[in-house]
């Protein structure tokens, strides 16, 4: 068993490449996989039909050789096309390229030819046989036909019944289908607070209140400067809340609220990162209670996944 863990949102948390540093991948949604499959079918069958029509029109071939060619081509676009495409483009068929998803090996190593072949051979049972049978639809009147139809639908639904969203072929080949990661580097918010003298000064007791989770929520807010009156109102609300919570006493002019938030973000982040380096990680605003409840926990080594906020936090226990 590879110990891949999948969070409910489809995020793979512990995919470990040979370098030993976990990388996050997001599982492709079932919808985009279905879409890619449909696109592939349309592309392959469409191009073969077009090709045959063109050849027929041009009069290069006709009759028997054309039929032979057609038969061979229709064989080729069923399983071999997927195998060759995924080998050449490293886990991507044309449909997957369009939908920006791709196949990766679940064990953190490179995708091997065996895996590509195995996962695509199963496609015959999982995808093509149901489609041809349902299109032919002549045998579906008897109860045996009905049983077969139900069974086929169940096989098609296998990706919905497991967390890794694997179809049978994926299970045999030990592969996953993930979204193509997109890397966009946004500017560092702590850089933008570049006033020469500090307009707002926060004391340590101001910065004691919040933890990493709140910091990153604030970061998300600051990434989108307000454009409408609504936005300004929201900024005001956030500012007021922060001022109240941290017990900040100096006046904050209305025009400087955005600057205040930026400055607060920067100093709060510096403070938290410092505490973190000293072994005092503060996940969120409940960190003070945690320290009270179990004293030895302060000596706990810094967790490697400290960078992620824990959203589903149990409510505070009354003591």
């Amino acid at each position: 068993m590879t110990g891949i863990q999948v969070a409910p949102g489809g995020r793979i948390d512990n995919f470990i490449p040979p370098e030993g540093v976990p990388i996050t991948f997001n599982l492709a949604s079932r919808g985009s996989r279905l879409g890619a499959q449909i696109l592939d079918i349309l592309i392959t069958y469409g191009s073969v039909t077009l090709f045959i029509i063109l050849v027929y029109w041009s009069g290069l071939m006709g009759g028997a050789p054309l039929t032979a060619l057609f038969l061979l081509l229709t064989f080729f676009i069923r399983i071999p096309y997927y195998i060759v495409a995924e080998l050449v483009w490293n886990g991507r068929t044309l449909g997957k390229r369009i939908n920006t998803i791709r196949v990766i090996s679940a064990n953190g190593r490179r995708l091997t030819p065996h895996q590509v072949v195995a996962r695509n051979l199963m496609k015959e049972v999982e995808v093509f046989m149901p489609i041809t049978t349902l299109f032919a639809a002549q045998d579906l009147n008897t109860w045996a036909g009905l049983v077969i139809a139900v069974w086929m639908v169940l096989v098609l639904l296998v990706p919905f019944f497991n967390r890794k969203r694997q179809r049978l072929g994926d299970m045999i080949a030990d592969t996953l289908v993930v979204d193509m990661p997109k890397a966009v580097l946004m500017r560092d918010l702590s850089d933008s607070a570049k006033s020469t003298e500090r307009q707002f000064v926060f004391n340590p007791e101001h910065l004691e209140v919040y933890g990493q989770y709140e910091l990153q929520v604030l970061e998300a807010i600051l990434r989108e400067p307000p454009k409408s009156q609504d936005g300004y109102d929201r900024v005001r609300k956030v500012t007021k809340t922060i001022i109240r919570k941290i017990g900040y006493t100096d006046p904050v002019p209305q025009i400087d609220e955005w600057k205040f938030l930026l400055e607060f973000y920067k100093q709060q982040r510096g403070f938290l990162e410092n505490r973190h380096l000293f072994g005092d990680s503060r996940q969120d605003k409940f960190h003070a209670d945690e320290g009270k409840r179990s004293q030895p926990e302060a000596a706990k080594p810094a967790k490697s996944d400290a960078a992620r906020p824990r959203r589903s936090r149990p409510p505070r226990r009354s003591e």
Partner: protein
Amino acid sequence: MSASPQGRETDFETLRSARFRKEREAGWRRLETLIATAEKSGVRGLSYQETLELSGLYRQAVNSLSAARAISMDKALLTYLDRLCARAYLVVYAPQESIGDAVWRLFAQGIPQAVRRSGVALLIGFLAMALGALIGYTLFQRDPAWFFTFVPAELADGRTPEATPAYLRQTLYDTSNRSGEVLGVFASYLFSHNTQVAILIFALGVFAALPSFILTFYNGLLLGPFAAIFINAGLGWDLFGWLSIHGVTELAAICIACAGGARLGLAVLLPGRKSRRASLRDSGRDAVKLLILAGVMLIVAGLVEGFLRQLIHPTEWRLIIGWGLGLIWLSWLTLAGRGGKAS
């Protein structure tokens, strides 16, 4: 780290994690452009220098990610590095083997070794076919009405128990002049039809092997009554030649596809100490090779059936070609790939 004395002032102004980012950002940007090139035109699109640079920068980015998780709380930065590393990983760990090499290794070692490891499954495959044929034959001899139960009319093509020996003989030695073109269509039809059947038999194996077994058994069941008709008409020897020329290869291929399915089914039924999923994955390696073998054999069988059987009529020659081919398969599968390491 820039611990220069005059940097003291800025140290106070910029955060440690922001400095960390500033020092490395150029490298990340460079990695991004290299990845973009490699994604578009493959690693072949990069020069030697650039390839070296790519692997170095990838390792640096992974290091940065690891460090950033420890010191930075800038979520945008963490996400960016995570994604960047993921993309670089996909480029760096792309399959390196050329398709030609992979195919050569498969045929020289992979397939013969997989076949030799699959004794039980092969036994199941051949047994399914043989039992089917035997039962079909005996049932037909007791009551010819069984023929119509087993064999669909369109497959029988007039070769029913009531058919005259003359007609039966004619189907074995079809003398109507077929042009090469028509034979080509016939061969490619046979190939794509038979291969689809083989893939089906194989892939159904994952459902506890039973469907594979039944399909193969049914193939045998078709064979039995057919053989019985011709034997009753005194054409047993001729049928043997007619079947042998392609059937040795084709029927063996179907049995091998069934064996591949059986490997999968056995993995599900009897996983031993492993989890079912792990066991399926391990057996999958051999099972897939068995199926590829079946596919190759079916291509050959299709060619022989489409061309040679229609062109060569003496039963002796049919036997020599058919069983000769069988001998070639057998010696390849038993002798090849014994020296190399297991793959």
